[in-house]
């Protein structure tokens, strides 16, 4: 198996083999991250620009950390103080970054499709760190990586994704990753946020929480973004919580082995009770930790390395 991609733009375009290559590479980096010396020299002398045009905490820090563990120099591009505020276009911003001899660009943007757009303009690898409601490929990869650690193969496993699916790039990337890996995906939530059209992506759509949770191996919660949806998609946070919030009673519908995931940031008491978020089934913080290894893998492979190089170094 050979890695040939220069960009990581979507999971939709990845093959199962490519997903597995990233996972295998991430597993090797995870071992390295458990050593005393957590750094490898792979990207020494390379400069990675984190072009985050939308707020982010976890993803940005994880990419930052991942790049530093690979010995790359990291430049953070701060949208608030940059020339995008003065009306510079994305093309001009990106071309300037390339002209500064950056070797790779990680982009987070509110506009869907913008990483693809950049990849057509620039001669350097582009990594999508979330584009609008489209995709968040490294999140989908780290989520499935975490699931595999707990469940082994995902073939035939059932994953329930609960919450705001319509506006979620995390949901879309997970749907693509999970269906390619042979898992069954059920999307659950209010009909306004989980439209039937998602069945076209290979997922099932349900508005009945109990039946969706009953045989799930994983329940993944998504943040309810009430500020984004206004008051049209559901009446209130209170009504959401009373209908779809994951609490102790509802968690008892899950099989005892099922795990609880959340890409963060979590709204305690809204989509999930605190007790469950911090409880033994929760793998929420493992997701964060795995985010570094998975992003190291993404940067490493898109920089032109092969999975074997790092895997053999850890064997």
């Amino acid at each position, binding site marked *: 198996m050979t890695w040939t991609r220069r960009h990581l733009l979507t999971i*939709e375009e990845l093959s199962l083999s490519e997903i597995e290559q990233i996972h295998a590479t991430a597993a090797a980096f995870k071992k390295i991250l458990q050593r005393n010396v957590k750094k490898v020299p792979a990207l020494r002398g390379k400069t990675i620009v984190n072009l985050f045009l939308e707020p982010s905490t976890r993803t940005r820090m994880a990419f930052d950390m991942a790049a530093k563990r690979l010995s790359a120099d990291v430049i953070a591009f701060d949208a608030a103080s940059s020339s995008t505020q003065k009306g510079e*276009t*994305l*093309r001009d911003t990106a071309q300037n970054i390339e002209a500064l001899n950056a070797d790779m660009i990680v982009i987070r*943007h*509110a*506009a*869907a*499709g*913008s990483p*693809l*757009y950049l990849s057509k303009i620039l001669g350097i690898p582009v990594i999508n760190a979330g*584009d*609008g*409601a*489209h*995709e968040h490929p490294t999140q989908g990869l780290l989520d499935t990586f975490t699931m595999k650690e707990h469940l082994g193969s995902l073939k035939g496993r059932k994953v329930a994704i609960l919450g705001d699916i*319509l506006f979620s*790039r995390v949901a*879309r990337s997970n749907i693509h990753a999970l269906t390619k890996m042979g898992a069954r995906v059920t999307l659950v939530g209010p009909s306004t946020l989980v*439209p039937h*059209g*998602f069945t*076209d*992506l290979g997922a099932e759509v349900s508005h009945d929480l109990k039946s969706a949770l009953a045989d799930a191996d994983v329940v993944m919660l998504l943040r309810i973004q009430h500020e984004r949806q206004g008051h049209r998609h559901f009446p209130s946070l209170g009504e959401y919580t009373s209908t779809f919030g994951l609490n102790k009673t509802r968690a008892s519908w899950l099989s005892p082995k099922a795990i609880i995931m959340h890409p963060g940031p979590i709204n305690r008491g809204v989509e999930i009770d605190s007790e469950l978020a911090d409880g033994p089934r929760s793998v929420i913080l493992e997701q964060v930790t795995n985010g570094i290894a998975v992003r190291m893998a993404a940067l490493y492979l898109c920089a032109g390395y092969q999975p074997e190089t790092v895997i053999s170094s850890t064997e």
Partner: protein
Amino acid sequence: MPSLWIKNARVIDPASRRDAKGDLFARDGLIVPSLSRAERKRARVIDARGLVAAPGLVDIHVHFREPGQTHKETIASGSRCAAAGGFTTVVCMPNTTPPADNAGTIQYILDAIRRDSLVKVLPTGCITIGMKGESLAPLGSLKRAGVVAITDDGDCVQSNELMRRAMEYATMFGLPVMDHCQDRSMTDGAVMNEGVMSIRLGLRGWPNAAEDLIVSRNVILSTYTGAHVHMQHISSALSVDILRQAKARGVRVTAEATPHHIALTDSALSTYDTSLKMNPPLRTEEDRRAIIAGLRDGTLDCISTDHAPHTDYEKDKEFDYAPNGILGLETALPVVLGVLVRENRFKLARVVDLMTRRPASILGLEAGTLAEGAAADICLFDPSESWTYETKAGHSKSGNSPWNGKKLQGRVKTTLVDGRVVFPMAAS
């Protein structure tokens, strides 16, 4: 001016039910049945063997951006696009800067047309002041200044009450009301059709229902007021159905379809190509089929391009941020021939009708026919010639076309206005 003798053409003139091999003659810019022997000797002769001679095409929906947005297009450049596309009469939309909501701006536009245009350009005026949908524009003054219809194209009058009054008031002046049918409350932030593709791409969707609601509203208000309402660029299958029923009841409604809505669907959007972004958006195959069926049975009256130039640097953006609209005039005929004649077996004369007599009759324009006494506005085209469209070789100031670099079949060879050749253009 020498007389004109077009020889050996296949003359198609739906208005006079003509579709036969033959010659066309013009004297003093008007079509005549024949020329005397002496006149023939001195006439300008065009050998049109293998070509179709049709009335100059008529497009009742173009954006020429003048005044105020002349970096995108001007009446000069837009009229050159029209000539190159075989169009001799076009109706330009009033969403200029400032909007054409007063007689002064119309006069400015008419002056520019007189000075710069190669073809016949007719202005429309706004329905509401500033196209804000709040208060009626001075329709009487606009009519006297020379508008052929009113529209807030690009925006849609949201208030039913205001639209009702606009219809009643415009009817007094014999002005058709053209409407861009979009319920804005349902399309906040929308950039493409709502459906499986918008879900896949994570883009905000513009549901068909937002068009269907306003089409229904307009049918109801036209029924109530008796006004002639023309629905612009219909894109939804259900809207076609609503119009079909309305027409069966004799409601005074007409409607148009664009070449892009009959040629393309939202499945083409997977590359986030902004030259496929327009409003209303490309819809599904089911909608596309319904629009073609509507053109076949007469529910939809004509083809209009919605020629909407935006510069490269305006379109070269994230999909969400790029403006709506694509070029249309230079590609309309080959695209429509491809979809309707070659793929859907429409008669060639039928397509000529959809692009000449019928759009002209919607607005009562003296255009779109080769009958005796009509202006010698003529489009000579080769229905089978293949060529590659390049926006760089075209005449627009902009390049936002999904057909850029694409092979097309059917090519305009010569366009005449009042018996004068306006395309190919003389080297300047």
